[in-house]
């Protein structure tokens, strides 16, 4: 554990602020071949829903310039199977475990949250921003009012701290963040994917069965950084930022914009060692700059 990178997100201790992003890291197992997961600041589960979901049909991935579109559609084993099959493994890993939860309506969110009360996750990431399925909850996430409402109910019911994951596709993101904070959220994470479209001109057809899909990766970084800055200016609760982070320099910029922790998504596919390299890069930065802790440059912009 690096003294340079130790980070508090409210009263949760992270060894370092680097956490692979939901949906880009499975439940971690696949990356154990590359490195010891205990090196990570935390782990974030694939997005879970109350019921198992088989996800979207048809093409699920499409590359774009410096970006990736995905239409996974929250394929996941459901909360029960997660608790039974994945949680026992996850909880043994010496790092912070975040559980990402989506839902298609209030009831499915609340039931899922209630079931999660049975396990000792350190943080729940409330996904109200998946653009790919109704169950992703983006309908809640694009308006401050509905985002606040669902957050309030979830916070009341959960015995875990709730971090709300915001959509970049809706109303002014700072307003939504404020509404979530007012509703009791203990943290904000952003951004989920940007809604985009792909057309296969050769087939004269839309690429994704679901018409639109979610854009992520380096292409979206400037937008994610702007939204992170806006949200960090708007709320007092800590922010876990993501969107196109591909190296420690990107990560540092998000920290300077005010983020407490970072999630690393699409770049895992480009470079499976990315989170580890980012941790190393941030640590070297602190040493070279004579910082006692990375927190010294947090929010300096």
């Amino acid at each position, binding site marked *: 554990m690096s003294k340079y990178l130790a980070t508090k997100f409210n009263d949760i201790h992270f060894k370092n602020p680097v956490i692979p992003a939901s949906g880009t890291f499975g439940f971690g197992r696949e*990356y154990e071949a590359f490195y010891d997961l205990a090196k990570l600041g935390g782990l974030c589960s694939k997005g879970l829903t109350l019921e198992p979901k088989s996800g979207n049909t048809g093409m699920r*991935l499409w*590359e774009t*310039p410096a970006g990736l579109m*995905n239409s*996974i559609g929250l*394929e996941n084993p459901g909360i029960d199977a997660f608790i039974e099959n994945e949680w026992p493994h996850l909880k043994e890993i010496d790092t912070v475990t975040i559980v990402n939860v989506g839902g298609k309506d209030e009831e499915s969110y609340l039931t899922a949250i209630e079931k999660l009360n049975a396990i000792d996750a350190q943080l729940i990431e409330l996904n109200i921003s998946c653009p790919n399925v109704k169950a992703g909850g983006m309908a809640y996430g694009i308006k401050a009012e509905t985002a606040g409402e669902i957050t309030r109910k979830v916070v009341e019911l959960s015995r875990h701290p709730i971090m709300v994951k915001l959509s970049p596709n809706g109303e002014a993101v700072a307003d939504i963040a404020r509404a979530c904070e007012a509703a009791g959220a203990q943290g904000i994470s952003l951004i989920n994917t940007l809604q985009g479209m792909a057309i296969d001109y050769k087939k004269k057809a839309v690429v994704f069965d679901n018409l639109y899909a979610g854009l992520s*990766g380096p292409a979206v970084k400037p937008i994610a950084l702007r939204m992170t800055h806006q949200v960090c200016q708007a709320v007092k609760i800590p922010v876990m930022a993501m969107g196109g982070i591909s190296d420690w320099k990107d990560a540092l910029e998000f920290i300077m914009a005010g983020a407490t922790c970072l999630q690393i998504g699409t770049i895992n*596919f480009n470079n499976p060692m990315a989170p580890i390299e980012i941790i190393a890069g941030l640590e070297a930065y602190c040493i070279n700059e004579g910082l006692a802790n990375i927190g010294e440059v947090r929010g300096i912009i």
Partner: protein
Amino acid sequence: MAVILSNTLVAPGIFKMTVAFTGDVKPGQFFMLRAWDKDPLLSRPISVHNYEPGQLTFLYQVVGKGTEILSRLQADDEVTIQGPYGNGFPEITGDLCVVGGGIGTAPLYYLVRHYQEQNPTGNCRVYLGFRDIAYGADAFAALADEVVLDIGGIITHKLTVLPGETVVTCGPEIMMAAVASAVPAENTVYVSLEAHMACGIGACLGCTCETRSGNKKVCKDGPVFVREEVFNV
């Protein structure tokens, strides 16, 4: 990073690349290749065409940006490879009949070689279908008991599967589907699927295919499946 030993044009638009690599590599497995930074963003899945300790060979067709960049690499250049990934073909013990279409013949060469080594007395027949120009047929002929070559036709028109043969097919999905329906139900048929891939290791769920037993990941549970799992036959 692997050092390229050779990378040569073997037919119009088809390249063969050999890199220095030693590991435990099974026929039907693949590697994720890249020789670029972020344009394109993702690595490219390419099957093992041949392997012996120290030498790993890929046979690939230039179809877009990634394969185009690969084709420009030269001996002594480096290429990033991750793998081997995927289940690979099962060990086959009886007689073998392989049916390859176009660049789908790539993984079948190592399969046939490996099969011959393991089954010196086994019978191995090879059907190869190409749209216009054939490549690699001589290499198969040097190994197999029989090679049937078809150019511009429909390979299943020529295909006769013998009782007891295990069939392995790789090629355009439409060809594999035709093989899957043409081969008698008594024969076991393995197909090797393709899908767009991001991670290649089972983490992103981008390459999911529907099977009789629910969703499977082409990269991790496949790319090799028994025909009944993935085709309606």
